[in-house]
């Protein structure tokens, strides 16, 4: 598939270099699959099938091997990019006991999306998360790389409103 001349490649030289830098760390190229998926996801906010095929080519794997790993995690989107901020709202026991489910419901209601969906302007994706390990700050959510702590429905909505 990747050898067809009319297919536009999605991995940039930068991404390819970043992926290749991981290869010496492991005795098997297949071990680079997860790092490679993360690298592509950080750049594109999703991992389309074409990227899967190009990762497979870089790592001497069948595209199905990369696709198999990708789909197992339920983490990497393939249809379209997630929002500029991906917000993981914890609903496991410690957060649920302190109102985590209400935070999740309120955000989905205000943004008019379901967990896993993105606002039409591409600004925010809301995800229902299992325990984020921030239980002393429950309820909490992870917004990209930031743990947002000690929330209630209103403060969570105010935080999300402030996202670019």
């Amino acid at each position, binding site marked *: 598939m990747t050898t067809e001349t009319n297919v536009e490649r999605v991995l940039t030289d930068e991404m390819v270099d970043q992926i290749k830098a991981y290869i010496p760390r492991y005795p098997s190229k297949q071990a680079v699959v997860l790092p490679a998926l993360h690298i592509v996801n950080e750049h594109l906010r999703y991992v389309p099938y074409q990227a899967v095929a190009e990762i497979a080519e870089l790592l001497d794997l069948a595209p199905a091997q990369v696709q198999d790993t990708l789909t*197992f995690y339920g983490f990497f989107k393939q249809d379209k990019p997630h929002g500029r901020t991906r917000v993981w709202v914890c609903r496991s*026991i410690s957060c649920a006991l302190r109102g985590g489910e209400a935070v999740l419901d309120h955000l989905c209601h205000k943004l008019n999306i379901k967990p896993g969906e993105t606002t039409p302007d591409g600004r925010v994706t809301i995800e229902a998360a299992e325990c984020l390990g921030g*239980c002393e700050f429950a309820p909490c959510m992870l917004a990209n790389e930031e743990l947002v702590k000690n929330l209630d429905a209103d403060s969570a909505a105010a935080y999300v409103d402030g996202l670019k």
Partner: protein
Amino acid sequence: MSEFEPVLLANIGKEDSHTLKVYESTGGYQAIRRVLKEMSPNDVIELVKASGLRGRGGAGFPCGMKWSFLPKDHPGPIYMCVNADESEPATFNNRILMELDPHQVLEGIMIGCYATRATTAYIYLRYEYPLALRRLQAAIDELYAAGLLGKNILGSEFSLDIYLHRGAAAYICGEETGLIESLEGKRAWPRIKPPFPAVEGVFRKPTVVNNIETMACVTHIANRGADWFKSIGVPADPNNPRDAGSYGPKLYCVSGHVNRPGCYEAPLGITCRHVIEEFGGGVWKGRKGKAAVPGGISMGLLTEAEFDTPLDFNSLAKVGCLGLGTAAVTVMDETVSMVDYLHNCCRFFAHESCGQCTPCREGTSWALRMMERIKAGKGRLKDLDLLLEIGDTIGIIPGTTICGLADGAAWPMKNAIRKFRDEFEDYIKRTNPNGYMETKPVEALEVVGIH
């Protein structure tokens, strides 16, 4: 109790506690210097064996014994995988160590790799810990810059590389062979054991898998000796030949309905009530406690009457729990419905079952569907027996699954329904007055997304 001196959390709270400078100013990296100079790898294994250190990740396997299972005179390479996929609900002690004192963990990894002759260590870190990722990477970079990682560390024959490997939000990667499969770039399906990782682990080579807190304990054992470690905690029960004791300090997490949620250090064997009252500041809002999860939701449930149970490796089974687990206590006050608690647990395990073994994949999924139905006021008394049937038949203990995830899914069902049966029956009768005696098959309410 009063003379207990925290060691794992000793540096936490100091400014820049995550940096090499602060760690070295408190005696950091003296243990590895002494080990490299004065001890053989086998001496270190014997030291850790003598300390009685048991793994802090949940299973409690004796650490030194695990190391001694590696084949002797293996040509290598031997790998260490450090399990930082801390995903058990309510557990965050490893996050605190990695964010606020990563060098204490890294020194333990270095000592462990020297003991096991591993020359590469992979830290498998869960996706949800971005600050831990940055802090650990910065700490590793500091070590390479200081000549404490890489070839011929401190002029010795010992060489070591440590790499971070970021997960992708899947609970099963905390199971040691699921972790290994994930690290290899495959779906994280746990392996049938034997062979155990010590014989054939990552990349088909002998592998040690250890938890973050376990590695931090190794640092302190190397500094203070096996006798110091063994002087803390609960000695082995002489009447129970299978009890290997509960030695050393432990990080206890407390969350849920308490006044001061947090991570606290104490000798192994303090009671759940002590964690709630002394560390957690008691149940919030002046309410009474109703139940508590003793060590992550996989371990089951303690009733308020069982709060005096010691949180050690030996005591929790006596009250019907699975074990100590991660020693993460979640407190539920008197207003919490056990239906809501169990629904929450069932949803977690249905979501996190990896799908490899049918009893777990189907059992967790159907348990959630039944709990959805009960919660929505369409439960039947028969559902409680069906839930118990699932709980009694999935897992390693009944012998139907490859890994222990299903045992963790089973324990909340078994404990909650057996310890709070009246409450479940009352709820079902009250919310489904015309149908609670029904026994005919019914349609599920909704199909739940599972991966």
